[in-house]
Structure formats: structure tokens, C-alpha cells
């Protein structure tokens, strides 16, 4: 027999628009406006999933984003499937397919349910305690733990949807469009402020919009109808923008907020094509008004987690808003008046209420009298002690509470039901407020934390500020806005209000039971299966800090961040440890408020846009000539140019040989270039480099080494004196921006008296480097007017020249040890100059080479690469580069550090050459170097920094850093590898042409 749970009226429902969807393979029907939760409830489906640890059956508990249990896997395809979607938030659309998570083989029969029976063996910290030893077994445990853990499945294919980021600036941002948010929006916008109102739900009006009772009136109208008129009015306001389905995820300092606008998740799949799915809004607001409302508290009693147990306010929302009855035999359990509002709603709709259990003794309340008029039995001063029904609640046990609320007394009464609504009062949703750095205070009267100290220009209003009843909201909202916005009055200053809620509440964090605590399962965190017993155990084991208890018991660590139960956890800790709530404080709420998809976070920064990359002006040529590329910083650099079937090794060997035997050509455009001008330019270089610069003649080049103030090598490169007061400095490719920043720093802060100006020209000039014995012939054909004789144009000098009409700077400098020229031209001419060199070099087998060959060639010469052969612990002395450190200069950056007690140690790691005993054995870069393989523990002396097979020397060469290596020349060391130990001899790091004959060849 199918029950008829769909009611005639549902505020959000369009009954003319039927939608079919699938849940766990079965087809169901709902209406437009339904959430997956309301549609399932209308079909009498309560069992949605299994809990995380004990695999207990769980159902829908709430009607909002705080939902801990009803989380589902959405879509079946491997690119769009999405885990952990809250059934209470997703709007149904034609073709929706959802399934239960954390169960196998099915939600109705789940093998993991055995954990529920084993639960006495699975206390808090079980994993920590059990799988710690023996340590070697961890890998075996891990396999099983990982397999049984986790909620839902991740997609395995790339996300096909489009996501965007958008910046928004406004005068006032209002978060939450309940009654107080609507009022604030109208006041702000009408006072000329550019206002943005965001609401996570599809519709405005919060819970007041369906408040339809004679007990709550504004200006003699039902509060719901009054609010509806207000909403219609604000929709017409010009400087108010309203965004629904928009959830604020994070509230950072200086009123910077992130919100996720959901644009297509409610549409049928075939209507989503080419539309942006989510937008991440980056909002900067002058003022922020938080009107995020409050979340109803559950109550903590034995077996309080069964399907069919919902928050009382959720039952009301499902009935009033979605037109769905959650059950036919309803019982409400409360400690305050708000459950009676639910009762009145259900009575109005003819839904049967079996009984109401109220913790409180006699309370003078109009709402209670109204319920009593309808002959509904109210058990006053009672509590629930237990429930039964495995896949759906069917019975509850109740007993009377003792006067102090610590015990149960009298005899047990059993009541049957198919749905239980609980109301433990309300918790202000202060998550965003505390994310922003706000400080809370504890209000003893009704045991809530409310905003106290605002860290930025913001205001909390409505129930997130602790105003829970209609009269409090209507009175306090306009008042606080008058003060906050500095205005004279609002249109809401003289409302006629009828509000019938009695504010009394009997708060008991952990309800007593006739059983001992150890025999109960009173869930505090539903999603992570943390019980009151677990929290008490943690305290017995010595945990005191709320943050520690949280981590040990995992309370509040689920995807819902414990929105329902965190307060109870605090309350139980407070009572057990005898500490005051206000002093305990809350755990930290962290962004995002509700989970975000990765797509939303990355936006359009996917694929080739994930990280920007820089291309040289010759890049296209490299692509056409089939270069493989290497990432260097953000640059794409040609790595090597394989011919036909060549692998990397073969290509590099060929390129290296060609460069030494005839001619090679390299795109060196990525080197950092800094133009330095000013009357103190020479003095400036004296201070930033270790060597002396004053005597460098105009037209000459010099290699410089730059240190950090701690004496460690920071950067290197060749600087050329273009004129009396004009230099061009080159830096390493990766270090360019940092060097520029560092030089600016010193100029602006330490030496402002120096007349020096720095300009980054890295992108303005491109560099074509031609090297090899035939380089002169090639370059002189490209630039026929220039005198290339050694007398006129020696090594380490520079000339201005013209290639046709193109101005260029030619430097005769070398990073390969070969006779070589670097032609610098304005970037847009670079490709044509490169092609001219290629043309001129045709007869000389000019060979383009990439970074790998460059590295090999310089290693043959023992030239360092900063960042490869050095890390931030190498001084020039460690590098055996004493020759470049000026003894005469009074000061330069890092000088004083070169004779600190630590930097003058003889046994520092020093750069040496390494030659393998077997000349064909090529070492692995990063491999450790040891002297004595039999010593235990083996003493690590250093590691290999660069290693290649040199085609020119026909043997393996390597550079490495070795402790005290300077004095180990000729000594044998060992590189222990996985399969064998390799013997090496410490050698001079210059392997080729120590006399530098080739520079002038």
C-alpha cells in the first residue's frame, strides 16, 4: 500500500510539473521545486545511507545545508559523478540519478553493518590505539582501513563542466535572505548603498516565508504574507542585486569573502551545455551584514540517529514548504516552544501527531495551549531514553526526568511512531562570523554562543545574533541597522507585532537514561559516528583541550563540520570536566562553510591555463623543429631537438659533439636581463657582486657572483659595461625576478643615496648564442660590417652592431668554453636573426642545442649552475671559486658572513669533480656519496649534483659536493646504489681545456 504523504499545499512546489528521478536504481516522481530529500520523503523513503564507522542505517535529518546523514553520490558517469552531495540541498531535475554511499552491496543490506555489532571494540581513538604496532604491519592494516573508509567515489575522468571566478565590489553585502536579511537589504538599498544579497537556497524568505499561523502577525497580517510583500518590493530596488543558490564559503579579513554561485545544478543535464556550472564570487564589501540564521539542535539520547528521526523544524519545512508529510504517526520531542510551531503546522494540514514529549514541566505558552486544544497528549517533564527500529524508527521509550534533570525516574512508557521530530533549541550560525576573526560570548540564559567582538566592519542580525523569536528579530534588526548604517530611521521602526513564543528552555546536553552510558549509543556527531560515550572516554584518557577532544573522537570533522552536534560535544565536555562553556570556547570553524567542488576553486585555471608559461620570441621555431621542452621557472625552454628516432641521450650526445667540433646555436633569451644606469652604477655593482667592477672598461664583460647577506651563493651571470654609467646585467633564468627584487630592496632601503636606476629588460631583448670553432665564421657572415679579429673583439668584450637595419649588441662570452658570441636583439627581430644564423651556419653543420646539451657542455668546463650545483648552503669558497671573491673591497653583500666561524670550517661540503672508475658508468644526480661502506651508520659525505656522459671526453663526468672534498683530490669514494656500489675518484671539476685554449680557437 502506498501512503499518501504529498500534501495539497507546498509553497515551493509546482504540482503541474512532474519530474522523474532515480535513487538506488528505482524510479520515483517528484515535483518542480522539490529537493531530492523532499521528493524521497514524499515517496516514504527515509533510509538514505550508512554511517561512516558503524554503517548504521541513516536517513534525512534536516532540510538544509547542515545535513550530516543524507549525503549521496550524484550522477553515474565517470566524469560528472559527485560524492557527498546533500540530498537536502540538491533540487531534483529530470533524469537525476543518485545513490547511497558507504554501503555494500546495498543500503538495505550492508556488510559493513557488522561494525555496529563490533562497536564495543571500536572506541574513540581505536585506530590510533590498535594499528600503532608493530610498525611494520602498518602497510597491511592500511590496505583494509583505506578500503573501508571514505564516503563516496571521486570522478575518474576530467571534469567536463565550466567554472568561473568573478570579482564583486559592493557597499553592503548581506548574507542570508531570511526575514532579517530581507529587512536589511531593503534598508541598505533604500539608503542609496550598492547592496548585494546572497542566499544559499533557491528562494528568499527563510523560515518565516512559510510561517502561516494566527500566533505570528506583523501589522495584522500573517508574518509569511507580510514577508512575501516585502520580497516583491525589494526585487524592484535598483541598487540591490540578489543572488540565490549562492552560498558564502569563506569570510576572510578585511571583508573579503568567497561565495559559490550555483548556476546549473538544478537544470536537466541537456540544458546545461556550454553554461557555467559554478561561479566563485570574490566579494570585497565595505560593510557585511551577516543574517545567516540559526540551526536547530538535535538532542542527545540513546539511538538518536535512526532513519525517521528529524529536526522538528525540518518536519515543518517539509510540510509547509514542500508539502510533504515525513510520517503518519509523528511524535515531537522538545525542550522549548519551537516544536509546538511544527505541531500547529501539522495539525493545520491534518497530519497525525501521536504525542509530544517536553523536557520542561508546566510552561505558560499560547502555542502549547493551542496544541492541547487539539487533544494531543503532551508528556511534560519527560525524556526519551531509547528508540527502536533498524531501518526506520518504530518505537520510543520515555521516562520522567528527575527535578535536577540528571536522572530518569518512574516507569518506562513505550510509544510507537514512524517519525520523530526533535528540537533542542537553536544554535546561531556564527561560522562565518568566527571565520572572519570574530570573538563569541556565551549567553548563559539559553546556552548559546553569540557574536561579541567584530573584527571588521560588519554586523550580525537576526537569529545568528541570538534573536530567535519573531518579536526580537523585528525589534532589534531595525535598531541595530540604524546604528550600523548611521541612518535616522527605518520603515520598520513602528511595526505591530504579535509573537507567541515562550522563550523558556530546559537545556540538558546529554539526556539521562535508565541504562549506563557504556551501553548507549547517543550520537553527537552523526556523520563521523562520535557518541557521548566517546567524548567522555577521551576526557577520562586525559584530553582536556576542546581541539584535542575533537581530533581524538573526530567530532565535528565530517563534511558537515559538526553543524548539528558541536554544541553538545562542548556541553558534555563542560559538564564532565567541570569547566564553564564560555571558557572552553568553541572549536575553530574553517572555510568552506559547505564543501566546494575543486572545479569551483580552480575556475578557468585548468589545462594550459593552470599556470601561465612564458615563451621566447623564437619559441615557434623550436616547435616547428620538434624540440622537446623543459620548464624552467615559468619558461618553456627548448630541452633538446631529437632527430627522427633519436632518444634524449642520443640527441644530446650529437648536439654536444657538434657544438665542440663545429658550431652550435642556443636560444638564451630566458636569461634575466637588468638594465642598470646612473652615476653610481659601478659602485652599486661593487656592492652587490663579490668581485671588483670599478676598473671594468666600457665595452667589456665580466662574470659576477652574487651572494646573500649570509654568504651563500644567490645568483651569477655576466654583466657588460655599455657606457660610463650604463651596464646590462644578466641573471639566471629562474632567479631573474628575485634578483631584481633584491637589488631594488638594497637600493631603496639600504643605499638610497646611490644614483642608480634598474629596469627589467628580460622580455625586451632576445639572445641568440652561437658557439664552436666555426662560430666566428658564421656570425661574421650575419654581421659582415663588424671587425671580428681577436685584437678588436677579444673574449669578454662587447660591440654594438647592425644586422641590416636591426640594432644589436654582440657579446663575446662563453658558457660552453668554446669560442662563442651572444647576439642580443629587440625581441621581435629575434626569430629572423636566429634564422639568419641558421642559414649562415648551414655549411658548418650548425646544430641547435637545448638546455640539456648546454648543461653538459658547461659541466665539461666545471661551470656551476646556481640552484643545481648549489643550494642555499654553498659559499664561493665551498665552490672552490675563491678567485672571484675580492680581498680588497671593503664590503659587499655577504662578505662579513664568509668568515663566520661556520663558513670557515674546513669540513664544509665543497664542490669537486667526480670520475667513475668505469668511464661508461654514469652516476645518478642526487646520489649519496660515502667513504666507508662498512661503517654503521654509513656516514653521508655529500651528493652528486651534476652528471653526464661526455661525448667529447668519451667518459662519464660528474660534479658533486663532498664534505672536506677540497682536500680529497685523487681519493676514492663510493656511491652506494640500490644494486651496486660505484667507485669514484675525486677530481678537478674542470674536465676539459683547463687552459681555456678553445675560447680563442
Amino acid at each position, binding site marked *: 500500500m502506498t501512503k499518501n504523504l504529498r500534501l495539497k499545499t507546498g509553497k515551493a512546489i509546482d504540482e503541474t510539473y512532474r519530474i522523474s528521478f532515480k535513487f538506488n536504481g528505482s524510479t520515483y516522481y517528484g515535483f518542480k521545486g522539490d529537493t531530492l530529500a523532499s521528493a524521497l520523503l514524499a515517496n516514504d523513503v527515509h533510509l538514505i545511507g550508512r554511517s561512516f564507522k558503524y554503517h548504521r542505517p541513516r536517513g534525512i535529518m534536516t532540510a538544509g545545508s547542515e545535513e550530516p546523514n543524507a549525503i549521496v553520490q550524484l550522477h553515474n558517469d565517470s566524469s560528472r559523478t559527485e560524492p557527498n552531495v546533500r540530498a537536502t540541498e540538491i533540487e531534483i531535475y529530470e533524469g537525476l540519478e543518485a545513490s547511497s554511499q558507504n554501503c555494500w552491496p546495498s543500503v538495505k543490506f550492508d556488510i559493513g553493518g557488522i561494525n555496529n555489532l563490533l562497536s564495543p571494540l571500536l572506541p574513540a581513538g581505536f585506530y590510533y590505539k590498535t594499528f600503532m604496532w608493530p610498525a611494520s604491519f602498518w602497510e597491511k592494516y592500511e590496505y583494509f582501513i583505506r578500503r573501508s573508509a571514505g564516503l563516496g567515489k571521486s570522478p575518474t575522468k576530467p571534469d567536463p563542466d565550466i567554472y568561473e571566478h568573478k570579482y564583486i565590489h559592493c557597499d553592503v553585502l548581506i548574507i542570508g535572505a531570511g526575514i532579517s536579511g530581507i529587512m536589511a537589504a531593503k534598508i541598505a538599498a533604500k539608503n542609496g548603498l550598492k547592496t548585494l544579497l546572497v542566499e544559499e537556497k533557491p528562494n528568499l524568505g527563510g523560515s518565516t516565508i512559510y510561517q502561516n499561523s494566527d500566533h505570528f502577525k506583523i501589522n495584522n497580517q500573517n508574518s509569511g504574507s507580510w514577508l512575501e510583500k516585502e520580497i516583491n518590493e525589494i526585487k524592484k530596488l535598483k541598487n540591490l542585486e540578489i543572488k540565490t543558490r549562492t552560498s558564502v564559503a569563506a569570510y576572510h579579513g578585511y571583508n573579503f569573502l568567497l561565495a559559490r554561485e550555483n548556476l546549473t545544478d538544478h537544470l536537466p543535464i541537456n540544458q546545461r551545455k556550454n553554461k557555467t556550472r559554478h561561479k566563485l564570487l570574490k566579494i570585497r564589501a565595505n560593510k557585511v551584514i551577516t543574517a545567516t540564521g540559526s540551526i536547530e539542535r538535535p538532542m542527545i539520547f540513546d539511538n538518536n540517529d535512526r532513519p525517521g528521526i528529524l529536526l522538528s523544524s525540518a518536519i515543518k519545512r517539509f510540510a509547509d514548504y514542500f508539502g510533504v508529510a515525513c510520517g503518519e504517526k509523528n511524535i515531537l520531542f522538545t525542550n522549548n516552544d519551537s516544536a509546538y510551531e511544527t505541531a500547529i503546522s501539522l495539525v493545520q494540514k491534518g497530519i497525525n501527531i501521536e504525542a509530544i514529549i517536553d523536557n520542561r514541566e508546566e510552561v505558560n505558552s499560547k502555542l502549547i495551549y493551542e496544541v492541547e486544544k487539539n487533544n494531543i497528549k503532551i508528556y511534560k517533564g519527560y525524556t526519551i531514553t531509547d528508540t527502536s527500529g533498524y531501518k526506520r524508527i518504530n518505537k520510543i521509550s520515555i521516562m520522567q526526568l528527575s527535578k535536577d534533570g540528571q536522572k530518569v525516574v518512574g516507569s518506562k512508557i513505550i510509544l510507537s511512531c514512524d517519525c520523530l521530530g526533535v528540537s533542542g533549541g537553536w544554535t546561531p550560525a556564527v561560522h562565518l562570523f568566527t571565520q572572519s576573526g570574530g570573538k563569541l560570548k556565551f549567553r548563559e540564559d539559553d546556552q548559546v554562543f553569540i557574536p561579541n567582538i567584530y573584527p571588521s566592519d560588519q554586523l550580525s542580525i537576526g537569529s545568528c545574533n541570538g534573536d530567535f523569536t519573531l518579536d526580537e528579530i523585528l525589534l532589534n534588526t531595525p535598531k541595530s541597522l540604524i546604528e550600523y548604517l548611521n541612518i535616522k530611521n527605518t520603515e520598520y521602526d513602528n511595526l505591530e507585532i504579535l509573537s507567541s513564543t515562550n522563550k523558556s528552555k530546559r537545556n540538558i546536553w546529554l539526556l539521562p537514561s535508565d541504562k549506563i552510558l557504556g551501553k548507549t549509543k547517543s550520537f553527537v556527531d552523526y556523520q563521523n559516528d562520535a557518541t557521548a560515550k566517546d567524548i567522555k572516554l577521551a576526557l577520562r584518557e586525559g584530553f582536556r583541550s576542546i581541539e584535542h577532544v575533537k581530533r581524538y573522537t573526530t567530532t565535528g570533522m565530517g563534511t558537515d563540520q559538526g553543524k548539528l552536534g558541536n554544541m553538545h560535544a562542548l556541553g558534555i565536555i563542560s559538564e564532565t570536566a567541570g569547566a564553564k562553556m564560555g571558557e572552553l570556547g568553541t572549536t575553530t570553524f574553517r572555510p568552506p562553510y559547505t564543501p566546494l567542488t575543486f572545479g569551483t576553486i580552480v575556475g578557468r585555471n585548468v589545462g594550459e591555463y593552470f599556470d601561465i608559461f612564458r615563451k621566447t620570441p623564437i619559441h615557434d621555431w623550436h616547435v616547428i623543429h620538434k624540440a622537446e621542452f623543459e620548464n624552467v621557472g615559468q619558461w618553456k625552454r627548448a630541452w633538446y631537438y631529437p632527430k627522427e628516432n633519436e632518444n634524449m641521450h642520443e640527441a644530446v650526445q650529437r648536439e654536444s659533439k657538434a657544438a665542440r667540433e663545429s658550431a652550435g646555436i642556443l636560444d638564451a633569451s630566458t636569461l634575466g636581463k637588468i638594465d642598470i644606469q646612473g652615476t653610481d652604477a659601478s659602485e652599486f655593482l661593487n656592492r652587490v657582486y663579490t668581485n671588483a667592477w670599478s676598473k671594468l672598461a666600457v665595452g667589456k664583460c665580466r662574470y659576477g657572483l652574487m651572494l646573500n647577506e649570509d654568504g651563500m651563493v644567490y645568483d651569477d651571470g655576466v654583466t657588460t659595461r655599455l657606457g660610463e654609467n650604463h651596464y646590462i646585467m644578466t641573471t639566471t633564468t629562474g632567479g631573474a625576478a628575485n634578483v631584481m627584487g633584491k637589488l631594488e630592496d638594497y637600493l*631603496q632601503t639600504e643605499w638610497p643615496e646611490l644614483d642608480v636606476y634598474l629596469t627589467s629588460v628580460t622580455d625586451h631583448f632576445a639572445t641568440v648564442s652561437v658557439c664552436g670553432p666555426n662560430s666566428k665564421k658564421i656570425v661574421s657572415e650575419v654581421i659582415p660590417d663588424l671587425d671580428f679579429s681577436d685584437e678588436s673583439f677579444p673574449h669578454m668584450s662587447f660591440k654594438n652592431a647592425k644586422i641590416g637595419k636591426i640594432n644589436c649588441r654582440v657579446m663575446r662570452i662563453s658558457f660552453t668554453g668554446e669560442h662563442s658570441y651572444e647576439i642580443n636583439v629587440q625581441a621581435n627581430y629575434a626569430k629572423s636573426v636566429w634564422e639568419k644564423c641558421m642559414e649562415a651556419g648551414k655549411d658548418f653543420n650548425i646544430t641547435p642545442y637545448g638546455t640539456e646539451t648546454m648543461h653538459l657542455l658547461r659541466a665539461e668546463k666545471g661551470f656551476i649552475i646556481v640552484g643545481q650545483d648549489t643550494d642555499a648552503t654553498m659559499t664561493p669558497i665551498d665552490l672552490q671559486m675563491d678567485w672571484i671573491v675580492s680581498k680588497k673591497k671593503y664590503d659587499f653583500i655577504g662578505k*662579513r658572513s664568509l668568515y663566520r666561524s661556520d663558513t670557515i670550517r674546513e669540513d664544509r661540503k665543497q664542490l669537486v669533480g667526480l670520475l667513475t672508475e668505469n668511464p661508461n658508468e654514469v652516476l645518478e644526480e642526487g646520489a649519496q656519496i660515502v667513504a666507508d661502506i662498512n661503517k654503521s651508520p654509513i656516514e653521508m659525505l655529500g651528493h652528486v649534483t651534476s652528471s653526464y656522459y661526455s661525448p667529447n671526453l668519451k667518459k662519464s663526468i660528474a660534479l658533486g659536493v663532498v664534505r672536506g672534498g677540497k682536500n680529497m683530490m685523487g681519493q676514492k669514494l663510493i656511491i652506494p646504489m640500490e644494486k651496486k656500489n660505484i667507485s669514484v675518484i675525486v677530481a678537478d671539476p674542470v674536465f676539459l681545456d683547463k687552459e681555456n685554449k678553445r675560447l680563442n680557437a
Partner: protein
Amino acid sequence: MFIINCPYCGEREQSEFKAGGEAHIVRPKQPTELSDDEWAEYLFMRKNIKGIQFERWNHAHGCRKWFNMVRDTSNDEIKAVYKMGEKPPVE
């Protein structure tokens, strides 16, 4: 994310700036005459205050100027910004 009032450009997003550590540490004029300990004091020792801290900031993706900032590290409130070479504001 802060909004920083660059003394040269006005209010800009924090993402345009780079933090440069503690301010008002002057590089010794004669480093060679310092003992190891004195040099180490300049080189390594930095305060990490909970409360009012004087910091150097660089408008790296803007005017590239360095300037000083007074910031309360406990709540990230920027109390003042002032140019290099200027004296820190009293209080």
C-alpha cells in the same frame, strides 16, 4: 586578504604586495668590524610579536616601492603605512 594603502599608489589588494620581514633593521655600516655574534644579531635575529609589529612591504606588482607598515599581528589590523626613511608613527 588585506587591503593595503601603498604610500605611493593608494589602496590595493594584498596580492599586489610582498612582505619583507621586520622593519628598521639597519645594515651595519662597517660589517667587517663586527664580531660573529654582532653580525649574527643583524643577520638572523628577528622578532615575532603577537601584537604591534613594524614590517617592510614591497608593492611588487605595482610601483615596486618598498615601504613600512605597522600591523597588529593578533588581528591583522594595519595601523599605519609610511615611506622608507620616515620615522615610525608614535603609538
